[in-house]
């Protein structure tokens, strides 16, 4: 499948969402589309799915059977899960039923429920099931891991790998890091109206200190901005005495590992959206939002964290390859941020 000089805008005089995009997708390939919110990821996915036509350029070689799971499955439909999936199967001409999808996606108990009654995670499973029904040659998943339970979170990468193994093309937009365990994922970043394929995306971890009671709120705000943010629990191992900064140049780009002050409090880990900021792009150099610290409380020390500190810490991995370091909140965060 090939995109050749594809440009797109929604209205004749509107701003360009994508410009001069060229992209080759090969059978059996798993592609992870990354980029900040509003960068054009969903537009690219819709174009790949055939729901949008390029304003200029061409999309050729699209497989005949396309499965598309939207970021938010529309539950405002007057069907039960089973009736909905049966209707989708009829439209697609699928004759062998749902197969083992309900079991694998952990949705057997949902089949008799009305779509309107589903929780966000359950609705998401229905969206995934309808996309996987026809054994697609092109599977497009928009934030497929959002809201999934642990079982489905673990099973979905296996299913994705199976689709790829059957020579299907899988394109995934993922802010949740659900593809970390899947080998041979090809990153494609969308930024500045352009699509960069196969680039190794440099990432960073920014450590943000907030009051424990506000950690979830801050994390939610950062997620809304398109960052990966995790609030981490306290560490049990003694932290390093001083923050250290280690730079270990990988074969193609430098790696920055940050090991700031350790803490025994929860840690908020923020990662930039995958493929959003890449090395050398201005957005990465922008100041990272930090919560102001109330003067009445002890500020987080840059030295060793103290038990009882009420400031969680967060870390930002700067590059793809963290240096080995002592186990601890920041070191772990760096490893989790590894690409």
């Amino acid at each position, binding site marked *: 499948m090939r995109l050749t000089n594809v440009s797109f805008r*929604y*209205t004749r005089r509107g701003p360009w969402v994508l410009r001069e995009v060229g992209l080759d997708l090969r059978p059996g390939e798993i592609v992870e589309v990354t980029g900040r919110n509003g960068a054009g990821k969903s537009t690219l996915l*819709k174009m790949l*799915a*055939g*729901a*949008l*036509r390029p*304003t200029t350029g061409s999309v050729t070689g699209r497989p*005949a*059977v*396309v*499965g*598309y*799971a*939207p970021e*938010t*499955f*529309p539950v*405002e*439909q*007057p*069907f039960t899960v089973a009736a909905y999936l049966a*209707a*989708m199967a*009829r*439209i*697609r*001409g*699928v*004759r*062998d039923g749902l197969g083992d999808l309900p079991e694998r996606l952990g949705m057997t108990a949902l089949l008799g429920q009305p779509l309107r009654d589903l929780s966000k995670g359950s609705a998401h499973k229905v*969206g995934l099931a*309808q*996309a996987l*029904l*026809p*054994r697609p040659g092109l599977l*497009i998943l928009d934030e497929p891991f959002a809201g999934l339970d642990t079982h489905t979170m673990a099973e979905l990468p296996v299913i994705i790998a199976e689709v790829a193994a059957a020579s299907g093309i899988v394109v995934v937009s993922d802010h949740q890091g659900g593809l970390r365990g899947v080998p041979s994922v090809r990153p494609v970043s969308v930024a500045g109206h352009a699509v960069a394929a196969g680039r190794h995306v440099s990432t960073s971890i920014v450590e943000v200190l907030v009051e424990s009671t506000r950690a979830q709120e801050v994390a939610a705000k950062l997620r809304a901005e398109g960052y990966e943010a995790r609030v981490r629990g306290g560490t049990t191992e003694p932290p390093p005495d001083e923050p250290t900064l280690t730079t270990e140049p990988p074969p193609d780009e430098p790696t920055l590992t940050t090991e700031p002050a350790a803490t025994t409090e929860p840690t908020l880990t923020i990662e930039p959206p995958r493929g959003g900021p890449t090395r050398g792009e201005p957005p990465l150099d922008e100041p990272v939002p930090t919560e102001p610290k109330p003067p009445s409380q002890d500020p987080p020390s840059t030295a060793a964290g103290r038990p009882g500190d009420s400031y969680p810490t967060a870390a930002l991995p700067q590059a793809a390859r963290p240096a080995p370091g002592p186990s601890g909140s920041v070191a772990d965060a760096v490893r989790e941020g590894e690409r």
Partner: protein
Amino acid sequence: MSGRSAAGAAIFLAGFKLAAYARSHRLFQPLIGLIVMLGIFYAVAVPAGAETSSYADSAGLLIVVFAWAARGLLDTEPAEQRLVSMTAAGSAGREVIAGLVAAAAVNAGLAAVAVGTPLLYGFAVTPGPAVILQGAALHALGALVGTALGALTSRPVFPSPATSMLALFGGYVGLLLLSATPAGRVLVPVLGWMRAAGDGTLTASFAAFAVPTVLWSAAALTAYALLRRTRP
């Protein structure tokens, strides 16, 4: 196993849209509007010989009900479901066609009610087959215009419900007013076919009304399909 022909996928998708429309009870809105208007049309029994004129008025005035029904059907599916339907049907074009087919099917049913009701209650004397055929043809034209107008005012084109309703009713009033002008002859000559039915010249001039109506509807539906290319 999977795989379905283009026509088969569009037909099954149209069925899915009709099922969603019926289960959502959105059909009641235009149906109630239709019943109210038929009640007004036939509150007084239509005397013998005036059936064609009565049918012509009904077909012209019910365009707004047909448009309302088409818009309601096309708005039943959430935006994300339309994207899913496009991939399920195999292409964006099939989803658009399926929606229009479903809307046309609903309007065909409403038009059948509009043609059949006065035969049971409304006409003083049951007219001959020729008059009933003329009535059916006029309502088919009205349903076609209504389907096109409803499509052009549906959510993908007008995301705001208020703007959409304004466009629907404004568009219908505009069509009526324009049909009173010379330009109406090449648009949708609603008032023209009403007058011709009253004059008894409808049969002779039917093509002069049908051709521009069909052409206008085709142009409107083409515009809708083109707009949907960037408004999935």
